[in-house]
């Protein structure tokens, strides 16, 4: 079967959804059903096309040949895997959006939303399939601008506009780095076709090759949200409408990871060990700091955005490990690490999509995303709470869910680093194991807090008190994502061989037969270790009722009385509950050297020093990157601009004189 027709159908349907959505702008109800209906169907087509390509139906689709080589799209294993990831999430989010965007009815244009959503998904799919450097850059820019438009969709909200500005600034800085490195590579290959880029590194001088790699790391690291280029992410992702946040955090950051993998493994070729070590180091710092900042957030969507920084760090740790293995020629282990990276990327797309949809539902029902004003939602919104809980379990890597399986694989690939030939490298790896473990444990703390404070105990505000469950379409979208999170873990042994098909062409070896033994995953070195998520799930499912029945039989059935929470004699109210800030206080004190918390306490006294009229308490953590990295740059830029303004007098005559002088100078020099 020719899967390229499915791909074309996907493109056409996306355009159709975009245009129909825009055309029906006057009728919001129809617009949202049609545009998100098309997006959903397009998602199904994308899934079909990607699975077909993964099973061997790879294809290439040429548009035209021009000045910059052939503009074409190619879907090979790696592209197909990312197309699958994008389409899968886009499908569930489209179902969710059909209900969610009702929120904007009468406030903002739904036609615009439908148009942008379809085009944004399309641009992401085209980015991961583009087969020409210039085409890639055009699409990359389109993706950035479309997502920018979505970030500032709530354009009467000043914060959203400011976030959008930071985003568009940072993303263009990243694009500049990418463009320069592509030009440098193209200089050596003589063509902009990605086909000719393959193996380009062999003909490049090694210093230049490393420089190109560093620029790519900065460029794609900016989009992926690698610390310290991450600063836009916690602004832009939460500012966008929640369904778009799900896509941005779930899959848009992955397009950068896709291209980084492609460039380093296929185009430049990983020959230097320090590349991998650098990625490993930056990524592990990113993972730890990302989750630490997430722990301090009280805005649920910002918390999730920081958690994306963390998870991108985890994914890139595995990519870095794969690069180190590759540089030593340990291909089997490199493939293992890369499979772990891609699996975690897929899993992150699912659970982060789910969590953002959950946060969106909370926002929809309560109109606040500040968790200190929430609480008790599990009783008002039982389904949303249950789905969010599954997402929280996944992101905290609780067995047997999907986040656990991929994190286990990443641990295994790091533990197998004892096969490295160099002592210095061997000693460095345990530190990253420790950091990954710390990340995992902090993520658990972070999501106990996120779920517990938002959904449990008593409502902390009127908004939370009067919340109602969200419409069925939203629940279906979240429910599907939740089911996929569970299946992704339990059925991991069936998914991993698919991922192997994506990594095999990149690394050069297929290790599915050394990794999957029936229902057991066992990484490459068979005697080393193994896990069977299905067996674990089975054991838990069998043991749970046994425990229940046994404890009810032993001692006979007993009554359960509903009573008050133990309150030491003072009737409990919601202000006495633990807050999110209080929850993370011990960690903020333990890691105070990283957070650099600043406390401000103001007291107004009455005549007696022992009786205070009121106390204001302010506690914030220092924005390290803004203060020490970005502010100085911004200040210098402003200063230079101010100095340069001396020649800008505003008079036409002066400007004409400048033009004349420049012209004369140019004529003299280039005559």
């Amino acid at each position, binding site marked *: 079967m020719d899967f390229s027709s499915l791909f074309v159908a996907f493109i056409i349907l996306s355009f159709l959804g975009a245009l129909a959505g825009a055309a029906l702008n006057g009728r919001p109800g129809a617009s949202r059903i049609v545009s998100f209906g098309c997006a959903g169907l397009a998602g199904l087509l994308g899934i079909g096309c990607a699975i077909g390509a993964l099973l061997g139906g790879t294809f290439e689709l040429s548009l035209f040949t021009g000045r910059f080589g052939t503009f074409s799209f190619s879907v090979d294993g790696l592209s197909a895997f990312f197309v699958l990831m994008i389409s899968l999430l886009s499908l569930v989010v489209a179902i969710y959006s059909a209900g969610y965007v009702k929120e904007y009815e009468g406030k903002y244009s739904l036609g615009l939303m439908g148009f942008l959503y379809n085009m944004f998904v399309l641009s992401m799919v085209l980015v991961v399939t583009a087969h020409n450097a210039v085409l890639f850059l055009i699409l990359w820019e389109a993706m950035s601008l479309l997502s920018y438009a979505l970030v500032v969709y709530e354009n009467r909200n000043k914060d959203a506009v400011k976030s959008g500005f930071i985003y568009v600034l940072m993303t263009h800085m990243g694009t500049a780095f990418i463009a320069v490195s592509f030009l440098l590579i193209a200089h050596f290959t003589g063509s902009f076709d990605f086909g000719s880029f393959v193996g380009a590194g062999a003909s490049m001088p090694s210093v230049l090759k490393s420089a190109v790699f560093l620029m790519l790391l900065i460029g794609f690291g900016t989009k992926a949200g690698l610390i310290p280029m991450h600063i836009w992410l916690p602004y832009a992702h939460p500012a966008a409408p929640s369904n778009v946040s799900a896509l941005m955090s779930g899959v848009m950051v992955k397009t950068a990871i896709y291209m980084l993998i492609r460039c380093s493994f296929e185009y430049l070729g990983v020959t230097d060990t320090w590349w991998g070590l650098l990625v490993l180091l930056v990524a592990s710092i990113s993972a730890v700091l990302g989750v630490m900042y997430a722990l301090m957030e009280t805005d649920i969507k910002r918390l999730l955005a920081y958690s994306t920084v963390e998870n991108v760090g985890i994914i890139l740790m595995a990519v870095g490990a794969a690069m180190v293995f590759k540089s030593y020629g340990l291909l089997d282990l490199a493939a293992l690490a890369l499979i772990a990276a891609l699996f975690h990327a897929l899993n992150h797309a699912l659970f982060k999509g789910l969590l953002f949809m959950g946060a969106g539902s909370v926002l929809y029902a309560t109109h606040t995303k500040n968790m200190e004003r929430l609480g008790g939602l599990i009783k008002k919104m039982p389904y949303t709470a249950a789905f969010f809980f599954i997402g929280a379990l996944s992101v905290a890597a609780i067995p047997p869910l999907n986040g656990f399986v991929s994190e286990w694989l990443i641990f295994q690939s790091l533990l197998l680093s004892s096969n490295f030939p160099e002592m210095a490298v061997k000693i460095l790896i*345990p530190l990253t194991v420790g950091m990954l473990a710390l990340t995992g444990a902090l993520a*658990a*703390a972070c999501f106990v807090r996120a779920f517990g404070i938002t959904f*449990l105990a008593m409502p902390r505000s009127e908004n939370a008190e009067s919340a109602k469950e969200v419409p069925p379409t939203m629940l279906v979208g979240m429910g599907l994502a939740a089911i996929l999170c569970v299946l992704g873990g339990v059925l991991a042994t069936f998914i991993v061989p698919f991922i192997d098909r994506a990594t095999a062409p990149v690394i050069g070896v297929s290790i599915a037969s050394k990794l999957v033994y029936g229902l057991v995953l066992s990484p490459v070195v068979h005697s080393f*270790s193994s896990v069977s998520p299905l067996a674990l799930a089975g054991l838990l499912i069998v043991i749970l009722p046994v425990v229940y029945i046994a404890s009810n039989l032993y001692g006979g059935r007993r009554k359960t009385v509903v009573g008050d929470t133990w309150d030491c004699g003072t009737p409990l109210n919601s202000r006495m509950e633990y807050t999110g800030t209080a929850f993370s206080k*011990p960690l903020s*004190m*333990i890691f105070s050297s990283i957070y650099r918390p600043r406390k401000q306490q103001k007291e107004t006294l009455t005549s007696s020093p022992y009786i205070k009229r009121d106390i204001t308490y302010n506690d914030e953590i220092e924005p390290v990157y803004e203060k020490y990295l970005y502010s100085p740059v911004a200040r210098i830029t402003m200063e230079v601009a101010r100095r340069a303004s001396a020649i800008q007098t505003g008079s036409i005559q002066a400007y004409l004189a400048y033009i004349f002088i420049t012209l004369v100078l140019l004529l003299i020099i280039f005559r």
Partner: protein
Amino acid sequence: MLFEILQVALIVAISPLITGVIRKLKALLQSRRGPGIFQPYYDLYKLFRKDSVVSRNSSWIFIVTPYIYMAAMLTAALLVPVFITQSLGFAGDLIVFIYLLAMARFFMAVAALDAGSAFGGMGSSREMAISSLAEPTMLLSIFAMALIAGTTSLGDISQQLASSPGLVRPSLFLAFAAFFIATLAENARLPVDNPSTHLELTMIHEAMALEYSGKGLALMELSSMTKLVLFLAVLSNVFMPWGIATDATPMALAIGMIAILLKIGTLAAVIALIESTFSKMRLFRVPNLLTVSFTLALLAVISYYIL
């Protein structure tokens, strides 16, 4: 499968006894007579027969947590070799064991927030903070064991170490020390948490279980006791698996059974001794202790490469 189930049954059956022994030893060290070593069995027997009180603020999370906690412990127990080096190793290795405990902790910490009491929140917050410092230590100790034995599967590590004494290296002891400190932290023992107090400002684990009563409390208590014995079994059989049966002959099994009871008993006595000689640390001193254990674990890995 027979041995696995027998081992789980053994672990659960002796766990109240081990807690009783620790309490009795502590009492003796403090010149008290103390309750008998079977007291925890009587307590559990009584609790299983009591009605439960459930807070009106709480949800299904609060109800299901005791069952899930216990189920996670039993599943984890299936992975641990006790008197024979056989366990359900294919289903999961030492990392899975750690993550099953993380699952139990996740549910318990969430359930502690469910009733809306500040005690629960405090316990939950502190537990998550301390465990996030203990987990890197445990995983690095596992790393060291993986280097020494060439596997992270619990049963295989025991088998390797028990059958080839040449594998014993300094890093084994460093890893043992690191894991032991993590055990104290994970099981809410002194000097990290005081298991025998209900004083609000000091408790961590007890604060999380504060809202439970009746059968729920019984399950939580039994699970915590099981967790302690599980950790002791891992310490015994992963780091010093001498005496464990490597095949299923009656003689080997008998020796294995005696060996594990002796080892767990000894470790329990060590815990009792520590709890009688150390005072509880201030909460914000605990990170120092856990940093020490992390350093030990790191040294264990590095010394493997260097020595």
